[in-house]
């Protein structure tokens, strides 16, 4: 009779049991150490602190927020700011990325070269550095709000970017700018950095997506008398979409996760508010758990949505 440990099935179960035991042991060991350390250092645990007043101000928020409000509302405000950056970022980066990707197929060598140069430059410099540079340019090199000159009703100054909004045109008032919609310098730097950086990746995705559409497709389109723009719009892009969507989803997720770099330019997103909370309360475990839980949920939601969209765009086999 064969010894039982020679049996592949039995060995498989043994391995799995060992792995499970190992992981469980690790978790227990880490948790035990953590509890012991927290006891020794007198760190309190639990999510009870979320109900206490936060006590710090948040420079910008979608909804009214005051420092007397509890921590959970501060976190919610941070989440709102994260979502604001992510949603606007995704919209603008898609537009810019698609334009740059399509530009790589232009007959005009100047345009083609420009798109290529853009991609190579912005992909090869760390996002954090780009964010810091944009922020520096905005707060150091732009004119002050007082000296800023409007361009088509748009003010670009140390106070950020002010845009007209449905007839509400920004005007200078005292030391600042009133009216319209104003993006704070922090938010503007973050948005600019995220959009410009991610667009270089999206451009490559769009380019390879279009390149994956067989040549015969656009030759057929031309011979039907479609123009170049029509071919792109009705023949190439819809087919390229199937190749594009999965990696594009990844880029959207990356952009959302990268918005956490806001902490470096002082935009109050979820991570920077969690960071402030850790420094104030010492509840590192809980705050990091909140960050991770929120980002995981966002990731899963985005994946689910893009999965649904992908199924819609997929080839319908009949």
């Amino acid at each position: 009779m064969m010894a039982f440990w020679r049996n592949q099935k039995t060995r498989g179960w043994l391995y799995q049991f060992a792995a499970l035991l190992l992981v469980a042991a690790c978790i227990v060991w880490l948790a035990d150490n953590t509890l012991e350390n927290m006891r020794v250092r007198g760190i309190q645990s639990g999510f009870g602190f979320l109900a206490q007043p936060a006590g710090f101000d948040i420079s910008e928020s979608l909804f009214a927020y005051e420092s007397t409000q509890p921590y959970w509302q501060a976190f919610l405000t941070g989440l709102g700011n994260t979502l604001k950056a992510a949603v606007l970022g995704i919209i603008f980066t898609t537009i810019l990325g698609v334009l740059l990707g399509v530009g790589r197929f232009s007959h005009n060598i100047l345009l083609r070269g420009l798109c290529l140069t853009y991609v190579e430059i912005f992909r090869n410099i760390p996002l954090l550095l780009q964010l810091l540079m944009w922020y520096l340019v905005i707060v150091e090199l732009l004119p002050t709000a007082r000296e800023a000159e409007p361009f088509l009703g748009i003010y670009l100054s140390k106070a950020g970017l002010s845009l007209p909004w449905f007839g509400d045109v920004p005007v200078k008032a005292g030391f600042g700018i009133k009216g319209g919609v104003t993006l704070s310098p922090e938010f503007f730097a973050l948005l600019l950095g995220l959009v410009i950086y991610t667009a270089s990746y999206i451009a490559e995705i769009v380019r390879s997506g279009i390149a994956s559409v067989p040549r015969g497709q656009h030759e057929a389109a031309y011979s039907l008398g479609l123009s170049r723009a029509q071919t792109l719009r009705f023949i190439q892009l819809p087919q390229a979409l199937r190749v594009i969507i999965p990696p594009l989803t990844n880029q959207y997720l990356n952009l959302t996760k990268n918005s956490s770099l806001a902490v470096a330019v002082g935009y109050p997103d979820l991570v920077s508010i969690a960071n402030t909370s850790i420094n104030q309360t010492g509840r590192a475990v809980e705050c990091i758990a909140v960050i991770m839980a929120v980002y995981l949920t966002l990731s899963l939601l985005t994946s689910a949505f893009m999965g649904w969209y992908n199924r819609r765009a997929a080839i319908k086999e009949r």
Partner: protein
Amino acid sequence: MNWLRSNLFNNVFNSSVTVLLGTLLLYALTQAWGWAIGQAVWVADAEQCHAARGTGACWGVVAEKYRIIIFGRYPFEEQWRPLLATLLLMALLLASCMRVFWQRWFAAVWVVVLTVFFILMHGGVLGLATVTTDQWGGLPLTILLASMSVLGAFPLGILLALGRMSDLPVIRSLCTVYIELIRGVPLISVLFMASFLFPLFMPEGTSIDVLVRVLVAMVLFAAAYLAEVIRGGLQAIPRGQYEAAVSLGMGYWLMQRKIILPQALATVVPGIMNNFISTFKDTSLVTIVSLYELTGSLDLAVNSDPDWMAYKLEGYLFIALIYFVFCFSLSRYSQWVERQVNRGKVH
């Protein structure tokens, strides 16, 4: 003439695009040239820089501060050590890129060079003064973090990918949960974990060096992404390869090592190299948990000095150039490797 016509002026629309873009580009380039080269100040002279402010760049800030930018807080008199260590490590990395050195004995060279690197950086032996890791900074730290994360993430990534493709349900779910968990959260939260939570995880009384903690975090993070890249390669291997290996009587590990992994890794070389490039760029994030690699050491160099504070942008551009050179050459190198591994394939 023909070239011009077919590439730039083949119809009315293209011609107008050319004229418009050309004018804009010409304007932008002359402005940029004037600022960065023509009117720029190249010497470390604060007065001249001040005079040129607004019209020309002040590269003097780099000339004045390059030692802090490159070496961070490393003691000034001892900076020949990180210089030598970095040159050694870079030579090693460069050599590793060459086909001649893709040999087994080269692993020993790695061990030797890394040991020398740590001895040079840390000191404490051979009459070298001890320099603790919290004083390491700048380019040596960036390169160390990048190469060590890649070195650590690669084996871990392979194991995770194999685990996720395994037939054993428990192993598969453990690996899947790990990969998805890490890929779902931003690197910065993993780094926060390294700086705030890792000390709590260890038995009471032990403390791990912050550099090691951050390195572990970078490895754990990069491995999850790498695992997904490698899994793509594993999925591309036809079933017949597995069946052939099994029918030759190969065990699991022998099969993976000799048959599956060599083919799987070869198909995903671009993905792996992209992962390395992102890891290199990601090292810039450690500045948020106060390790002074290139980005952090620039702050260190410029922020404290009112004479030069105004020229931080030039400093940023300087380190952006360093990052660009590294990442760009890596991406070019990746294309070369791709050609190398595909050489044997019949198309």
